[in-house]
């Protein structure tokens, strides 16, 4: 026996909306609404705090009073070089993972994905053990070429690449898997070798995902902290990137720390806006 419900009021506007869009009531049940609001508050309040506490009056002075320009420059160019390196060596690896099969491939994919979940500081320790002057690779680099990596801008780039490249690889591999291989078959019947197919058909077709992966990689490199400070240290002008500068400024000059944070927030917003078509609509990566 179904209990009958008494009619409740339905405004003309709500009625029109339901006719146009279809579907039933869109009111949110209380057990879902309350936690959702808490989640929103948790995500938004800290950012609001940053904006409220910002030394708007003397923002310029706060920034110039620190090594902000140096740190920002270092962060921008190392992140860009990291992205370039990741494209050159990461995209081929993504292709190998997506388009071939060989024994140990699953293990290789797990290893490639590991830095995504590994605490970055562990990555930094690992890099140090491998490439420091007494590390099992660094020892020979020092002995043969006189090359010392730790605590140099090169170390910054290596730390960032270690942490950020997997983001690019995973994005591109997914795009390669879901790409329509019919086009590649067609290219093969037209006489194109596999490398030509890759260059002229596969890459252009996954260009949007390639761009998304590159931006993701760049943003991750820009925010890198743990692996960098462990492997590269924090020499101003040499290895002190923006996140590290923020961390130290917070102890000595909180206004500068807030100003630096605002700069990074601005960069993040720009990145997000540039990707809005891909992520903010909840669609899948092509």
């Amino acid at each position, binding site marked *: 026996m179904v209990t009958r419900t008494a009619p409740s009021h339905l405004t003309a506007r709500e009625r029109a909306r339901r006719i146009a869009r279809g579907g039933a009531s869109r009111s949110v049940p209380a057990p879902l609404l309350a936690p959702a609001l808490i989640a929103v508050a948790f995500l938004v309040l800290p950012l609001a705090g940053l904006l409220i506490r910002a030394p708007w009056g003397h923002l310029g002075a706060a920034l110039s009073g620190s090594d902000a320009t140096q740190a920002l420059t270092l962060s921008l160019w190392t992140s860009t070089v990291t992205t370039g390196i990741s494209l050159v060596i990461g995209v081929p690896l993504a292709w190998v993972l997506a388009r071939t099969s060989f024994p140990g491939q699953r293990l290789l994919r797990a290893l490639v994905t590991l830095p995504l979940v590994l605490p970055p500081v562990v990555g930094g320790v690992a890099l140090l053990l491998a490439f420091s002057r007494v590390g099992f690779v660094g020892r020979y680099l020092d002995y043969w070429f006189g090359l010392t990596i730790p605590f140099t801008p090169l170390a910054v780039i290596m730390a960032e690449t270690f942490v950020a490249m997997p983001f690019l690889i995973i994005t591109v591999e997914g795009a390669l898997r879901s790409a329509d291989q*019919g*086009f590649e078959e*067609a290219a*093969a*019947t*037209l006489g194109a070798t*596999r490398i030509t197919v890759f260059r002229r058909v596969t890459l252009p*077709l996954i260009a949007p995902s390639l761009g998304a992966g590159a931006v993701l990689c760049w943003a991750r490199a820009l925010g890198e902290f743990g692996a960098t400070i462990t492997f590269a240290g924090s020499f101003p002008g040499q290895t002190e990137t923006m996140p590290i500068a923020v961390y130290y400024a917070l102890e000595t000059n909180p206004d500068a720390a807030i100003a630096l944070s605002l700069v990074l927030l601005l960069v993040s917003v720009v990145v997000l806006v540039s990707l809005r078509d891909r992520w903010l609509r909840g669609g899948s990566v092509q």
Partner: protein
Amino acid sequence: MTPGASGGLIFDAEVRRGSFTLAVTLTAAAGQVLGLLGPNGAGKSTLLSAVAGLTPISAGRIALGGQVLDDADAGSFVEASGRPVGFVFQNYRLFPHMTVAENVAFSPRARGLGRRAAKSAARHWLDRLGLADLAGRKPDQLSGGQAQRVALARALAGQPELLLLDEPLSALDAGTRLDVQTELKNHLAAFTGPCLLVTHDPLEALVLADRLIVLENGRIVQEGTPGQVARQPATDYVAKLVGLNLYTGRADASQVALTEGGTFIIADQNLRGDVLVALRPSAVVVSSQHPQPSSARNTWPAKVTGLTLLADRVRLDLQGQPPALVDVTPAAVAELSLSPGSQVWLTVKATDLEVYTRAHSHPALTDPHHSPPSTHHSCRQRQKTDPRD
């Protein structure tokens, strides 16, 4: 002249994919358009894919103009990119990020021409197929018919020795299909190598192909000119496709005892043994009462079980001995007040029955109206052991 020596294609191979096996032997001479007709899943596309080198064969060999493309026993294989083959895919697969001109220039460029030479080769084919005005467009700015021509131009621009067309017109709407079909026929006539054309549209096959091969469940069930296949279908699938009634039976002195009941009187007095009888739906006369004696020799009662309105006529589905599909005018339906359940009499002249001996026995023919697909799988073995042969 053997097809292999003069630029022709020899396909004598098996392709196994899971439980499906394509086992086909065929040849296509240079300049010939060989139509591959068959229902979905018959193996037509698999065959093209094997010829193009996109799927290696499991046994046998494929050769073109005397050159081996794939030999499973010898272990030799020419990669798809190394085969002189032009492939027009079902949905064309035009590269969406390239213009029409770049699409057409792709193959000349991939096959070693310089940028400029490839461009001029592309221009030649664009002109030839009347696509010069569309050169700068992207594929998503083309109509179906235009995309089809671009796909053909792109395949031909690589100067292939063999052309493969997979349902070239199926993506088009009915309106443009006829125009494009006529145009395609002209272009195929100008192509000097062999051409394999896959279709499940009998009209397309009849118009475009010089010779037809009917595939069912990975096997060839009939081979012949389009006229032969249309007039004397070997299986129920082909008969339905070309819109004929097909009966199996045993002929004996101008009579055929039909497998599914009933008897036909036929014109030919010399036929003996297992035969097929093909009957055009329009050759059957429908009467509401037992007709007056006439020159027509075959009369039998039947019950209407279905009516389908076709373009200009009504197709009746009739249960009787034998059952039949019959075409009448809508006026006749009204006049005889035909509806499902109506009892009628059918009349057929003996001379309207196309009677022919079976080229080879096929198990599917024993029950043409209800042939379970599983009977096809064992067709080779059954052919050898069938006691009726």
